[in-house]
């Protein structure tokens, strides 16, 4: 497929190693290897990632077991059983520890992976299909979601991602789908329960077609009926026909479902939805907006959209279309790094990727809190729309102050022996301003020059 497409697109735009790794990855590092061309990065994406084992996290099943232990301890506390309160505290602490380790694993992978594009794609798709941890239960499930629903599917089809996210425990809990019950289902009639529109609406509005698209409130309602049956039990997600609304549902002009509830009907619609032209357009625009520009060129969006539709939503084909478009090779700077990208790229720039794997829980909390002050509470965005793509959202007086504080502290703690004049050529491309080159060599001490490098617009942008 890759070779076919390459022949069709004609010449591949030469994209420099810095641009490839800064615009599409977590930046360059003096001591971490990185790919220097698109073909290698895409070929690597298809391979198994050795970090999957090295930085493996507990499975969803293990997480559910831990959560069930919490529920049991809660019950026992209510019954005033001895040790219950202590038990509860221990379990809760363990849950918090797992969540902190999830965030650490996410950051460490980004900091040490040779394929930064893979890690950026995980962040991108986790954001497109946002699950925000509004409570500990969802936070806990979110760690499994990121790896099992998102990471496992970034090289497949868009429809795989869509189906995996829409049926994952974390998403069902986050957007209330697990409690949505068909009013005419067996359980609905018995328990007088009914629908919850939350997931149906956000799938259409945020995950696929986009808010400006042609779906209506009636489509949302019918889709909500179709989605009933998606349930969460002690094994995580399962399809429960007893809560599934019987009958046909007409969504976007086509009819789905029938007398007998079946998960297949939901997947049929999600497959169709994945290939809807408005979904192709929305996803193409979102990729271009995230990686390249707040206002991507029409040609770039059209190119990605065409690759999307021609390949039936094959993500590798879509990535290649984006990476080989001339806009990808153009000078950087149109985007501001998200706080997580900023922090990880600064850690990489100082050659501290592997140190990150060994930081104490306290240091990790500090990094995490710094990102919050920069405006990004990782895996906990304010709403299901995820993180902003606007530079002006991320750079304002208080959040810039937080970046300055953190970068200054990092340079002071870890940059006493590094020469910023050498480092600048290792972590940025040739388009560095004369002013910055001069400034980093003109401070009283090396760490101050390093701080200026990390605080510079050139380093904050991509």
């Amino acid at each position, binding site marked *: 497929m890759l070779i076919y497409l390459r022949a069709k697109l004609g010449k591949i735009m030469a994209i420099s190693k810095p641009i490839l790794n800064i615009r599409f990855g977590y930046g360059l590092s003096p001591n971490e290897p990185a790919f220097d061309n698109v073909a290698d990065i895409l070929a690597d994406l298809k391979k198994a990632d050795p970090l999957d084992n090295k930085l493996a996290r507990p499975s969803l099943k293990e997480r559910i077991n831990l959560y069930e232990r919490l529920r049991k301890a809660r019950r026992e506390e209510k019954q005033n059983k001895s040790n219950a309160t202590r038990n509860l505290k221990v379990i809760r602490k363990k849950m918090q520890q797992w969540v902190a380790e999830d965030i650490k694993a996410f950051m460490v992978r980004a900091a040490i992976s040779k394929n930064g594009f893979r890690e950026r794609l995980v962040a991108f798709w986790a954001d497109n299909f946002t699950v925000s941890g509004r409570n500990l239960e969802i936070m806990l499930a979110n760690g499994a979601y990121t790896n099992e629903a998102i990471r496992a599917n970034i090289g497949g089809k868009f429809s795989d991602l869509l189906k995996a996210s829409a049926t994952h425990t974390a998403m069902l809990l986050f957007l209330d789908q697990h409690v949505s*019950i068909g009013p005419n289902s067996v359980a609905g009639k018995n328990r007088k329960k009914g629908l*919850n*529109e939350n997931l149906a609406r956000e799938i259409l509005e945020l995950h696929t077609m986009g808010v400006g698209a042609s779906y209506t409130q009636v489509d949302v309602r019918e889709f909500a009926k179709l989605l009933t049956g998606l349930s969460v039990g002690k094994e995580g997600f399962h399809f429960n026909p007893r809560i599934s609304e019987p009958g046909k549902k007409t969504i976007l002009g086509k009819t789905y479902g029938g007398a007998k509830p079946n998960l297949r009907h939901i997947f049929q619609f999600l497959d169709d939805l994945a290939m809807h032209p408005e979904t192709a357009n929305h996803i193409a625009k979102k990729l271009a907006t995230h990686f390249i520009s707040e206002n991507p060129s029409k040609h770039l969006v059209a190119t990605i959209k065409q690759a999307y539709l021609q390949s039936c939503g094959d993500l590798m084909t879509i990535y290649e279309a984006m990476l080989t478009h001339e806009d990808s090779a153009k000078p950087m700077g149109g985007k*501001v790094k998200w706080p997580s990208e900023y922090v990880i790229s600064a850690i990489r720039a100082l050659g501290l990727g592997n140190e990150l794997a060994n930081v104490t829980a306290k240091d990790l909390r500090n990094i995490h*809190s710094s990102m919050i002050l920069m405006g990004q509470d990782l895996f906990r965005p304010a709403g299901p729309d995820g993180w902003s793509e606007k530079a002006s959202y991320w750079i304002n007086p208080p959040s810039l102050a*937080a970046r*300055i504080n*953190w970068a200054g502290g*990092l340079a002071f703690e870890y940059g006493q022996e590094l020469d910023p004049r050498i480092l600048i050529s290792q972590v940025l491309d040739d388009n560095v301003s004369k002013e910055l080159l001069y400034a980093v060599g003109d401070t009283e001490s090396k760490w101050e020059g390093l701080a*200026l490098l990390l605080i510079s617009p050139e380093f904050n942008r991509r």
Partner: protein
Amino acid sequence: MSISRRKLLKSSLAFSCSIAASPLITPMVLASVPTNNRLVVIILRGGMDALDVLQPYGDKNLSLYRKNIKFGEAAGAHDLNGFFALNRHLGDLMPLWKNGQLAFANAVATPYRDKRSHFDGQDFLENGGFAKNGSLTSASDGWLNRMISLMPNSNIETAFSVGRQRLLLLEGQAKTSSWSPDSSLDLSDEAKRLLEKLFKKDQLFASAAKMAFDLSGKIDGTADGNMNAIRASKAEALANFAAQRLNEETRIAAFSIGGFDTHRNQSNNLPRALNELSSAILTLKKSLGANWDKTTILAMSEFGRTVAENGTNGTDHGTGGAMLMAGGAIKGAKIYGKWAGLDESDLYQRRDLMPTGDIRSYAASAIRDIFSIEKSAIESTIFPSLDMGNVAKIII
């Protein structure tokens, strides 16, 4: 290890203060104008269920729609006028109601219809536009910013914003400042000079840095007292900070409170958001002192929610909602607006509370009287295509 005496950056990796960010609170924005009157706009994110906040318990139809979400006496609500009752989690505001310092505009909405998207709905509410499909006015700026640009003698201090994120409400041509109660930036003058040079060619960084330098010197952002306040209650900290600014140069403040998207177990989830709102208002009152009498608070949300509860003891995205007004400057103890009724045929698309008024017209009425702004400018520049008609006067 030799450490420069003229330290570029006094901070270190470990910093003094961290807050657990709450999805309930997004930071706030403030502004200043040459008048003694003050305006606070609170954006309530998520779509506040008006029927649970201002419960029409006198409407016999309500019980047909709501079996699990309790209301009226059964929910411990406070009667307001024999027909409407106030959610008990806003009960601390009852003294304000009795003193004529709390009011509502009921059955109101922006012109946005049908898509019921939070994010479009919120942008649109802050933009003040008129397109039914929610597209923003051409400048994509905030109505409060457009208002400031119409005020004589406005300057950078006029628009003072606080928070890590900016509200669209105050974005636009008029320059706004911004800061957050949990922010600090402790730099030597030499460090500031170096950074100014570094940012010179990048307008976004340069203007943010300039303001950060100016404000960090002026505002005691991370004093221990403030941090404790943040831990105690985030809305309280934001409101307290807003009040401090309003007691100085600032005349206009805005911030947001989240947590109103109650799809599920509304009776358990709404109270948290209402407590934050209540705490914000009472903190403003306390911290504003004598200035409270010249203050108007408008709390508004992107849309209301479905009249009928959904299958999960919550409500889904709707249309008509309610705006809360408070402050010493308002004509309170009143519920403005025409009640649309809850007969199925009275509802919008047989689903949502029918909006009988444009939420913008109440904001328009308030700013006309608070800041003496011409009706014609309001109806063209601030809220395009708005017909204020004979909207009630809500300011004393």
